[in-house]
């Protein structure tokens, strides 16, 4: 018995000693993503993006030039400490994410959390971080309410759904050749659609525009004739759509068959960027505009984006960086830079460093943002979406101006291709 106790004690002491030395050279960050369940494929891509970011920080990559944060030699102000990410599986469920957040903080002793893709999971996991006083960086969730909770420890690098609608209005301001005063919004009556409609209502007023029709519909309906007739009757200058793939297809076909073309057809992402939509309905809706967070032509903009994309492809079995994985990668770099600037693994020091983040557009290499700077609620106020236009079988960036590559775009007014 006595022997057993001794052994146990020795084992404990050893384990303690191990973690104590490890803490000197390794910074542990917890990452929560849906690694199994319905969103597992997205989750594994995000995990790959986080791992790529960690690799950029820990391992030297002489071929990459000008990736801030990607030092290749660990965190300089922490004696070259390496970053180690402890992944946890939320299974896409808020309650499981919450339990995993508790485990990561209490048992794995991570110094910060990153995640969790779905807004609902980010909501519960960030609440735990707030209670425990651990910094939380959210790279991908877009529900506006996440940064309306007055949290002290929560930071979001991605723009949110309201920013995106605000961006739409800014884009419309740049269209001089057609009127953009009268706005109609067509939306499916779920969270996504209703929030889009509310935001359009609010931002339209600020931009002194008028919402002339607000048309909700139920998803998966057999016909959208009434919706289309209502839209046409309102004679809007701009029609904004919040629809998933099936309804997007049906709306496009119905409007085309009845020969109605809104002068500006502007989608809020979702169904209009689905690859099936682009490949099969695309040829008929050349000129449709959509809001997005990412565009494939960004690869050709900066050589480094292409390099990062190639590195990601090599690790993910051929998948390209997209709006989700690119945001995770960017978020991880921002968090690592903040920890480095803090020069400490103390939560309060990291929080202050995050709050003091001030990156310009050149320092944000991957995402098409004006930079990263958090407001009092932890929302990155320099984030922005893109507006893309469908031309020649793919989407091309038309806004903001500095990411636009084809100067002849955007083409308005919208008309059906025969």
């Amino acid at each position, binding site marked *: 018995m006595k022997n057993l106790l001794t052994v146990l004690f020795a084992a404990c002491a050893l384990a303690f000693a191990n973690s104590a030395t490890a803490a000197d050279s390794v910074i542990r960050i917890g990452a929560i993503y849906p690694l199994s369940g319905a969103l597992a494929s997205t989750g594994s891509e995000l995990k790959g993006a986080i791992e790529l970011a960690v690799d950029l920080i820990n391992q030297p990559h002489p071929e990459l030039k000008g990736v801030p944060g990607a030092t290749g030699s660990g965190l300089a102000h922490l004696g070259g400490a390496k970053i180690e990410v402890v992944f946890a599986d939320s299974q896409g469920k808020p309650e499981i994410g919450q339990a995993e957040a508790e485990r990561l903080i209490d048992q794995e002793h991570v110094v910060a959390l990153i995640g969790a893709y779905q807004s609902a999971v980010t909501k519960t996991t960030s609440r735990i971080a707030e209670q425990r006083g651990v910094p939380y960086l959210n790279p991908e969730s877009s529900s506006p309410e996440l940064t309306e909770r007055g949290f002290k420890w929560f930071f979001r690098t991605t723009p949110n759904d309201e920013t995106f609608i605000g961006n739409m209005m800014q884009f419309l301001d740049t269209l001089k050749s057609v009127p953009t005063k009268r706005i109609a919004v067509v939306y499916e*009556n779920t969270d996504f659609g209703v929030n889009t409609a509310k935001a359009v209502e609010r931002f339209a007023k600020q931009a002194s525009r008028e919402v002339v029709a607000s048309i909700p519909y139920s998803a998966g309906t057999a*016909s959208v004739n009434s919706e289309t007739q209502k839209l046409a009757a309102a004679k809007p200058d701009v029609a904004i759509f919040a629809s998933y793939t*099936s309804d997007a297809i049906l709306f496009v076909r119905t409007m085309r068959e009845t020969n109605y073309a809104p002068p500006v057809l502007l989608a809020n992402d979702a169904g209009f960027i689905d690859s099936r*939509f682009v490949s*099969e309905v695309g040829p008929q809706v050349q000129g449709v505009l959509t809001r997005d967070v990412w565009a494939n032509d960004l690869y050709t903009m900066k050589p480094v984006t292409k390099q990062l994309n190639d590195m990601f492809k090599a690790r993910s079995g051929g998948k390209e960086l997209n709006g989700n994985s690119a945001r995770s990668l960017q978020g991880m770099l921002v968090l690592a830079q903040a920890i480095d600037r803090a020069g400490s693994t103390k939560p309060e020091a990291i929080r202050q460093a995050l709050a003091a983040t001030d990156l310009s557009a050149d320092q944000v290499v991957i995402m098409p943002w004006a930079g990263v700077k958090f407001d009092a609620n932890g929302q990155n106020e320099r984030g922005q979406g893109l507006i893309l236009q469908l031309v020649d079988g793919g989407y091309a960036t038309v806004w903001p101006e500095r990411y636009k590559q084809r100067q002849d775009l955007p083409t308005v007014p919208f008309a059906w291709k025969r």
Partner: protein
Amino acid sequence: MLEAVATGLFNGLIYAAVAVGLALIWGITDVINFAHGDFLMLAMYVAYWLFTLGHVDPTLSAPVAACVLGFVGFAAYALIIRPLQRAPPMIVILATFGLGLVLRQLAFIAFSPDYRNLPDTWLSGSIRLGEISLGRPQVVTGVVALAMIVVLFKLVYGTRWGRALQAVAEDRLAASLVGIPCDRVNAQVWMLGSAAVGVTGALLTSFFYVFPSVGAVFGLLAFVAVAMGGFGALPGAFLSGVLIGIVEALTGYLVEPAYKTASIFLIFLLVLWYRPRGLFGRW
């Protein structure tokens, strides 16, 4: 207003076209085919692949889809319904439900859950009548639906074979006593009803997207049309289909498009409330 009614009318004809096959099978063989929507899905995939692989226009592939679906209907009857003849009705209903699930899952595996679309077909385009602009595919499908119901009606109520059908529907035992081959008649009805949905499905692809659960979009409306029209009444199912289309369009135009589906079920409830046997039901 006029435009709303006109589009509603043609949408209604399309719902009716989906519903007639179901009404026929239900009326004669007493089986509610819960796989009817999935039969529609199969027909749409037949037309989709014929177009995509063989450049056959949906207008031409409609007869092909009718034959394929006729065969599917026969197989469903011979392999599933007939062996269950003496089973309680609930078992038969569940069996058709199971068949529908199997077909849907097989489509998921074989065709992936992607939404598929035909590009422009012969029917694409619109028809202008004065102020009103209507989609040509919808109009053609509606007209074909009308022709189909007339033919079916003639078959069932105007031929010797039709009288045999009615006899089987009325009293199976008595019918077999006077020498009507009930089994064969039932099989024929399953083939005919499924072939009807085959034609509709093929034409639908000229204006609607195809995916494995597309049957659910139209299937439910077809069930409502059949139940509202009245058990065993072909014209009832047809007229209810049209009524559904018009009510839906008027609600969308006068109230709010989001209430379209609710209005259909409200009318359905009212009909059942005041006339439980349906608008044209015989019992």
